[in-house]
């Protein structure tokens, strides 16, 4: 579903991500793990088409992100770590805006919005302006807006931050459902327990380079993901890459 080949991103002289290659097959949840500034967000932003890059290729469902950005984005939903939603809109207006962009017809959007808003418990707040939402509610609204697009690939940057336990549990269920339906998920997280329990595959990035990737069972082996991660980053915390 997502194929990243030899992706390199530089900020001036600084190399944020170097020669990264990663494949996210359909039906798999892939956890993207790394220290702060390792290059996780840069990779996710480049894959979602927000960030320009000059080296390497990124393809989503056969659409090259640079050559056919609209085709690639049509099957993708990206959720940044701190979603900047339109605060002057109400929650319902915002979901309507997203549905308009994706050309979702009225009966279908009503059905999808009702289903996902109820699942995350924000159906009673959709009339309020987004500016009055808490961080967790914004996160929930962004998740609802992502799921109503029925994406084939979901890119999530720290999706569990700010979510209450019920919403986090619901999200895990939705991610699994999406993958069971033939979709794929790539998400970054610092909660290693969640990654180990939820992900089919794990990719560990350090200093802009992919240091380990594969099925979770193989990566973890007999120890825990935390031990593997600490072992791979034994050099201590590096400087922030971005």
């Amino acid at each position, binding site marked *: 579903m997502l194929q990243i080949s030899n992706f390199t991103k530089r900020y001036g002289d600084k190399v944020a991500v170097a020669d990264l290659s990663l494949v996210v097959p359909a039906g798999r949840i892939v956890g993207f793990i790394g220290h702060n500034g390792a290059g996780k967000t840069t990779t996710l932003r480049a894959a979602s088409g*927000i960030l320009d890059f000059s080296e390497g290729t990124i393809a989503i469902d056969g659409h090259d992100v640079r050559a056919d950005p609209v085709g690639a984005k049509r099957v993708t939903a*990206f959720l940044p770590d701190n979603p900047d939603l339109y*605060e*002057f*809109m109400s929650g319902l207006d915002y979901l309507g805006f*997203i549905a308009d962009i994706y050309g979702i017809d009225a009966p279908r959007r009503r059905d999808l919005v009702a289903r996902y808003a109820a699942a995350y418990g924000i159906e009673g707040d959709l009339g309020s302006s987004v*500016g009055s939402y808490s961080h967790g509610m914004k996160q929930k609204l962004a998740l609802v807006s992502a799921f109503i697009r029925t994406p084939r690939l979901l890119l999530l940057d720290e999706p569990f931050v700010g979510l209450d336990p019920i919403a986090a549990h619901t999200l895990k269920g939705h991610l699994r459902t999406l993958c069971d339906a033939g979709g794929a998920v790539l998400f970054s997280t610092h909660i290693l327990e969640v990654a180990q329990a939820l992900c089919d595959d794990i990719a560990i990035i350090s200093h802009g380079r992919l240091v380990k990737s594969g099925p979770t069972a193989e990566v973890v082996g007999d120890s825990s993901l935390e031990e593997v991660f600490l072992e791979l980053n034994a050099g201590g915390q590096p400087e922030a890459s971005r």
Partner: protein
Amino acid sequence: MKLFWTLTRAQLRGLLSSVGNSNTRKTRPRSAWLMLGLLALLALYLSGTYSFALASVLGGTGNLDLVLELMPFVGAGFTVLLGAQSAGTFVFAGRDNDLLLALPIPRLTLALAKLAAVLLENLLFMLCMVLPAGLAYALATPTPAWLWPAEVLGAALLALVTTALSVALGLVITVVNNLRQGTTIVNVLGMLLLLGFVAGSLVGQVPLMKSLEADPAPVRAWIGTWTPPLTWVRDVAVDGSLPALALLVLATVVPFAGVAWLVGRSFVALVGQATAKRGGVRKVAVSSMRARTPFVALVRRESQRFFGSSIYFLNTGFGLAMLLLGAGYLIVIRELPAGFAEVARAARSAVRVRSSTSRPPSLSHWRPAESRPRSTPRRPASRWKGSASGSSRRPPCPPAPCSPPRWRSTWRSRPPSCSSWPSSVRSSPTPRPRTPPCSSSCRSRSCSSSPSWGSSRTSPGPT
């Protein structure tokens, strides 16, 4: 097209919500419309004032139509400067860029939607500048039927080209704003330049009016040479010239389309470049940390904020900066610019005129009782109330003996300074006859012990 309108609507709402000055987000849209309406009214008022002033000057020389070029010139200048701010904020550094770039929207559509929001803002201000000029022209001379459609079309076309310029300038502003090192100095210098331009324009009005009164031909020639679209607007509005219309369309639509295409083509790269933080990572040594008192820590924090924020610096240190700039200028140049000298002379003469009269400026209508016609009712003493700072604007009265002011039955204590009042007055809580506080013959003398009328709660003063 539907996608374009959906996006443009969202962009406009975003632009409006940033104009609003309300603390609560619920009332922000209302506040935004109110603010926009007020700005438009202000622009209309200013434009109307200058349009009619210019029309009266130019009418005398037979060059009334020049007002149709001069006011759009002013409008173009302002819309470029205002639009540059909006373009910097909304096009290149928009908070919603991440959201929009992740959506399946063609980049050209996205760029056009963002530019359309800036364009509509520019169009509003351009109309506010152009239409009063048309009115000043139409009231002074018979006008052709196509004047008003031509003026509106001219404003719309000029807004296109000013939007293109705004976007180019906005890109530069965004890049400069994201320079990590020296940002504040660059920002402050930029804002000082802008303020200097505005101040220079204000000061240059007098010489401009004089030169227009003497001979408008050089101004007309300058506009024709350097800003030909403004001349074409005039040609279309006054003469109905179709070649001028064709040239105007060409000169305005092509730059806008070019800028839109360029921005759309490389929007992601431009946004990335414009908003990327530049400058190397500053190496610091932990050993350089020092212990400070809480007071010093607070002062340091405030000074860092003061010099780190251009807005803060300009709001609070602008006077000092101008003082230093002016002093530096005078040290180097040693004389005031012609416009400033003229304004300074006018201000000095105005001060002299005021200081030669004994009355305060706000009471220029006041006349002593002797010179007042008998039919004029005497101004009650209570009209002169002391200001909050304690200074009194009431006419001076002698230190003693003073007539007691008109008394209020609710007074619980006498005014503090008139100790020389008769004891009967001091002890009497009953209302007194309507006696003015000072006799008319002593108004010209000063009274240092006059009570501060209305400034004390215990002595509320006469009504």
